[in-house]
């Protein structure tokens, strides 16, 4: 494993720990309008306009809510949902892998064919379809819970993990796919939330903070840039971790770990 990957993993862990520690501290401010200083338009970050930022280091959004607090709370929601989705995905894939391996050859082929078909579907339209069919009524959009949103992505993403668990170089493939899937889940979930599905306001996520960016980004660039920077930095760190993992050919590195029970049939 490359040193850059280890550094990136440590940075990610610190980042997550910071979000977990800071969320209860800034939690109240994330959905609170700064009624004292807000004059109806977004407040600029302090490094842009120190005299009128009113203590909002990264400014405020279009409703006068502190960007830093929203980024921290939204980061917790986003990363938590993605991690939960990865867990559900792995649980589904693991269950189906057991079914395929021990349920006889017929079930094996059926599950493989199903997974092959699932992995051919484009994810964003599929996620939108699931989000609409399960939660939209004629007039309202029912607020889905975090567990429900994570389940959508678990249901969409399981084939890759299933194939990774089933393949010859299973553990190493499994690690690469899991990190890659976490990146893709982050990007797809922020896309879904950008369209207004997933978590509903006032709950902030990095995705739904960008939902109004087409109208807001001209008057307040910070409201649309900082959430995107958070997404990009997280995905980029995960990408560095993924690229640092050893390639599929030398699986011996990973075989030392006690993950041999996950290895599929040859």
């Amino acid at each position, binding site marked *: 494993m490359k040193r850059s990957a280890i550094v990136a993993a440590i940075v990610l862990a610190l980042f997550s720990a910071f979000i977990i520690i800071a969320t209860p501290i800034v939690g109240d401010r994330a959905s609170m309008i700064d009624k004292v200083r807000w004059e109806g338009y977004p407040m600029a970050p302090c490094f842009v306009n120190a005299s009128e930022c009113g203590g909002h280091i990264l400014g405020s959004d279009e409703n006068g809510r502190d960007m830093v607090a929203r980024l921290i709370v939204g980061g917790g929601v986003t990363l938590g949902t993605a991690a939960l989705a990865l867990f559900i995905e792995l649980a589904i894939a693991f269950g189906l892998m057991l079914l395929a391996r021990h349920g006889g050859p017929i079930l094996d*082929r059926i599950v493989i064919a199903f997974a092959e078909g699932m992995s*051919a579907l484009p994810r964003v339209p599929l996620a939108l379809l699931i989000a609409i069919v399960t939660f939209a009524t004629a007039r309202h959009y029912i607020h889905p819970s975090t567990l429900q949103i994570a389940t959508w992505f678990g249901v969409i993403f399981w084939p890759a993990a299933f194939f990774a668990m089933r393949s010859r170089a299973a553990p190493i493939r499994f690690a690469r796919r899991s990190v890659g899937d976490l990146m893709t889940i982050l990007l797809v979930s922020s896309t879904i939330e950008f369209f207004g599905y997933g978590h509903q306001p006032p709950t902030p996520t990095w995705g739904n903070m960008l939902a109004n960016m*087409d109208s807001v980004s001209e008057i307040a660039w910070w409201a649309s840039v900082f959430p995107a920077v958070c997404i990009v930095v997280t995905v980029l760190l995960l990408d560095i971790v993924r690229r640092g993992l050893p390639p599929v050919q030398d699986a011996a590195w990973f075989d030392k770990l006690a993950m041999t029970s996950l290895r599929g049939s040859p």
Partner: protein
Amino acid sequence: MPVNSRLAVALVPAVRMSARIYLVRLPLLEVRALSGIYKVLSAILAAIVIVCGVLYLPTHRFFFQRSAYSEFFERLPMTLELVIASVIIGLALAAICTLLSRRPTAWLGAALAAVLFLCMCIPVFWIALTGQLVFAAHGIHIFGYFVQLPSAGFAQYDAFNITDRLTHLVLPATLLALVQAGAYVDSMRSDFSVRRLFAAFALLLPAILSADVLIEIIFAWPGVGRSFFANGEPYHTSSMVAFLLFGAAAVIIVRSVAAILSRPDDTDVEAFQPL
């Protein structure tokens, strides 16, 4: 021997052989030989899924007084234009990056590769809206020239005009190419061959289709991806089902070709799917 049966004699072994290659070579897609009853069962399963989708599609007529198929195939050429242009631009970017990564300009190649890898990590809707803002809404000065591209649509005039079409195409196609270029660079760097590049493209295709939907919505490109959006909301689930069915069919066909072309040691081909 009648022509029909001669054709059958020629075709049946070819089909059987290609099916066999597909199923044996499928380690690329990580599925191995299906035989006998399993083929039938998996075909039945696929048929159930497809029939459910096809049965759902007539609901389109209820809202639009026309079939989902006719709307899909009417819009398909526009989507193909966008996707093919983006694949060409993506391959060109990756080729430039690979060529630059030789000795005298290695730093330039590395910088371009870093930019392309970064572009793969940016949400597509964000880079599309920002690109639209910078290059279309405001315009930008590049080397003394003021560049301002059209912000939406695929043509301004009814009559075919190549300049008109290209100026509308360049921005969405380039943004869609940025989704793919990083994966092509990865593929070109580890022992380059056209068949491995095609395999990477086959693995990436669902992500390209997803990104195509977003680009078509943001740039009001009148392709199939835009058909299920109205007023910025994806209302038209029948159009979505049509897109998913035909998109999955395209992906499976392309992946089958990639599997037929692949060699047994190509199992390490992987392409990160940004969407």
